[in-house]
């Protein structure tokens, strides 16, 4: 071992010791997503001496990342997350070898990359990636540590690791199918407090260390929910489904993970076009943001939050409907539904309210 002093504080722990430390040094962990969850998970795994770590993210650092991705600095804005993270981690611990994947996980790369690792940490921020990782880990029989946040609340669990009841749980036991895009707002749309992914990502690192070393009781078979505002945890024992999910390599390759790739021919309009259109009498401006979302606007004719749209579809008048939301993503799905079910002419404001107030 390179330097025993480095790990002395954890090696003197009861049930830890040299043997566990050597297990960490020999371990191969893949972290998918180098954002709010991935950064703290990476830092603690590198600190703990996990020997081989892969990090995967195609994104570049932006100013709006910095409130929660505190590994990065202002001077790194515009640079690739994986490159900056890897450079800093090499300074933290030269025992650790870090492989960077500056790409998004998808059906063409998931199986071959995950196959190289013992354990995966899902630190992604969208459902298509989460289901894709779930299914790839199911096919390859790799344990993975799930984490997700929403505003002030977080969830953590360990999937694909045999529980004390002899079952293996995966994410589809909780939610068999992914919500439609726009059905559940993401961080950019719903907001998140910076420290929360720090807490959840650190718990994910702790779970990875527990699985690798065999200490304690990992969260396999349990969903841990944390509410930051209440300072409260809530744990739910997960029930395995009667039958295993129908998933193999062929189904995986043909599965539609990213519905955003579907052809949605909703016309998107610019702020300039929107400002002309919204004054026309035949145009009806519909705000599909949830009630709590800011800023308030005075140029919409009605607000029907996305979560109420199906139930209130009949309220939409026989006009041309111009739909707005926070970032112009949900509005596309709202437009698609309205066009399908009400057969009205629809438009979506490109970039949403964010673009409007720029």
């Amino acid at each position, binding site marked *: 071992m390179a330097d025993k002093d480095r790990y002395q504080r954890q090696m003197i722990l009861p049930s830890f010791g040299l043997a566990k430390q050597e297990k960490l040094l020999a371990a191969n962990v893949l972290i998918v997503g180098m954002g709010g969850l991935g950064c703290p998970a990476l830092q603690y795994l590198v600190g703990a001496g996990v020997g081989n770590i892969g990090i995967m993210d195609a994104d570049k650092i932006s100013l709006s990342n910095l409130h929660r991705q505190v590994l990065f600095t202002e001077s790194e804005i515009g640079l690739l997350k994986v490159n900056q993270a890897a450079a800093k981690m090499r300074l933290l611990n030269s025992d650790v070898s870090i492989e960077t994947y500056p790409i998004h996980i998808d059906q063409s790369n998931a199986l071959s990359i995950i196959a190289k690792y013992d354990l995966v940490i899902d630190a992604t921020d969208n459902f298509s990636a989460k289901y894709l990782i779930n299914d790839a880990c199911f096919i390859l029989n790799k344990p993975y540590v799930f984490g*997700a*946040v929403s505003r002030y609340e977080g969830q953590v669990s360990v999937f694909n690791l045999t529980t004390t009841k002899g079952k293996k749980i995966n994410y589809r036991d909780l939610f068999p199918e992914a919500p439609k895009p726009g059905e559940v707002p*993401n961080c950019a749309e719903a907001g998140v407090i910076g420290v929360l992914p720090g807490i959840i990502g650190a718990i994910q690192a702790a779970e990875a260390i527990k699985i690798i070393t065999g200490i304690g009781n990992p969260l396999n078979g349990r969903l841990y929910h944390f509410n930051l505002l209440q300072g409260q945890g809530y744990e739910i024992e997960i029930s395995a489904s009667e039958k295993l999910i129908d998933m193999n390599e062929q189904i995986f390759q043909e599965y539609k993970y990213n519905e955003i790739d579907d052809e949605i021919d909703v016309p998107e309009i610019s702020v300039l076009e929107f400002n002309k259109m919204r004054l026309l009498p035949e145009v009806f401006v519909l705000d599909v943001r949830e009630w709590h979302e800011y800023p308030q606007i005075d140029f919409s004719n009605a607000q029907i939050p996305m979560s*109420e749209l199906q139930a209130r579809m009949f309220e939409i008048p026989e006009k041309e409907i111009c739909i707005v939301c926070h970032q112009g993503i949900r509005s596309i799905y709202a437009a698609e539904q309205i066009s399908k079910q009400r057969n009205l002419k629809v438009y979506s404001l490109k970039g949403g309210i964010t673009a409007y107030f720029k």
Partner: protein
Amino acid sequence: MTITVYFFGSLVDITSVSKKELPILMDTNSLNLHLQKEYPALVNTKYFIAVNQQMIKANRNLIHGDIVAFMPPFSGG
């Protein structure tokens, strides 16, 4: 004879409360229907139900003092 219902995550946007005491209902199906009538937006929302911290996969009878959790999926990171 009452039960307590907890709503998590974005479900609180629909219900406006994170905790609710209710007179006891026969089973989880009738509780779910009752709440979907009170909060129609729940109908098109994904969540699973747990009774006393155990996720349920099928209808289950309720007894006085049961704690029922409605948990939606989170995707942020």
